[in-house]
């Protein structure tokens, strides 16, 4: 019901965001506000969005994710979406969302690896 279900934790120069299983529109809007506010407050280098608990994805959520990543980019940070479930990925592709600007990781562990290794690995390939 509120953005309180969302957790935004700062780990060193990163923001760790955990999204609840079934986020409503208020929670999703709250996510964007809180991530951006935390970016400003901590001058974080990146955001790791753990969406592994999420099992449904609608167009509003998808658009917000993509917009938030762009905003974080403007504020000088990277956004990595971690742990997307197969069913969610299928839905995302079906509604035409490819998250081209966003980096993805299989899980939080690998997302942290990506941040600590060379930046934008995929583009270098």
């Amino acid at each position, binding site marked *: 019901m509120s953005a309180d279900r969302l957790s935004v934790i700062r780990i060193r120069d990163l923001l760790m965001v955990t999204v609840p299983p079934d986020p409503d529109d208020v929670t999703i809007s709250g996510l964007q506000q809180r991530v951006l506010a935390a970016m400003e407050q901590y001058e974080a280098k990146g955001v790791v969005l753990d969406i592994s608990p999420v099992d449904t994805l609608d167009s509003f959520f998808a658009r917000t994710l993509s917009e938030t990543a762009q905003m974080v980019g403007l504020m000088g940070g990277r956004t990595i*979406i*971690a*742990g*997307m*479930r*197969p069913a*969610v*990925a*299928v839905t*995302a*592709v*079906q509604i035409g969302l*490819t*998250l081209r600007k966003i980096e*993805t*990781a*299989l*899980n939080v562990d*690998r*997302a*942290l*690896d990506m941040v*600590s*290794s060379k930046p934008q*690995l*995929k583009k270098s*390939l």
Partner: protein
Amino acid sequence: MRKPTKAPAAGSTAASPLVDKVQTSDLLHLLVDSVKDYAILLLDKDGKVLTWNAGAERIKGWKANEIIGQHFSRFYAPEDIAKGKTETELKVTREEGRFEDEGWRVRKDGSRFWANVIMTALRDKNGELVGFGKVTRDLSASRAAQDKLKKQAQEIMEMATVPVVQVWEGIVLVPLIGMLDSQRTQQLMERLLQRVTETSSPFAVLDITGVPTIDTQTAQHLIETISAVRLLGAEVILTGVRPVIAQTLVHLGIDLSNVLTRTSLAAGLRLAISTLNENAPARTERAV
């Protein structure tokens, strides 16, 4: 046992002395009554049950006194009766002399069984219809076995159509062989996403060496699959892009510029492994 003193009756199968005492028609009655594997019954012209045997009781559940005189629609599901199946069966049998059917029938307790039914029109010497003979077999067991076989065959086919194998720590390989239709690409997407998640593999190598041609729709499906795998956080390398396929893709105007592609499977695997190794030092440092 046959007694040697008595000669067999000419022109008859009734060679045993036992038959001299009992009429063949009585024997026939006895046979029909005692057969347990078939429900054998007689219906009158309107379809009411006239006789009932042991097999009928075993298969359908009613005792003779409960069912004789009742219409044979009792053996059918409500939806079949609504469709007028019973009348159709009688009509066909009347006109063609015989009717055969396989389908669901209902037992006394309401449960259903898969039956093979043969109806025969019974006519007297003048060709006047006097009733119907009905033989029913319960095929539920063989049908269940058939269904099981079909299911197994389908599972094997699925495995064979879209094999997803983990070939290296962090790499799953999908060797695709033969034409890709939309059903196969759908299965491919599901199985590949599942396996990538299960094995936490950062790389999926999609080898299309064995795919003869690619059309717009198939290419679109492949792109969707690649996008979905990327959303999970893994990268897809498309290998086995032969000259013909490359030509087709460009002529169709399909843009694969942001997909990693290699001509040979070996080159694709090399790329995946070297990228994994590049990342490895970062991982071990963290672990220390």
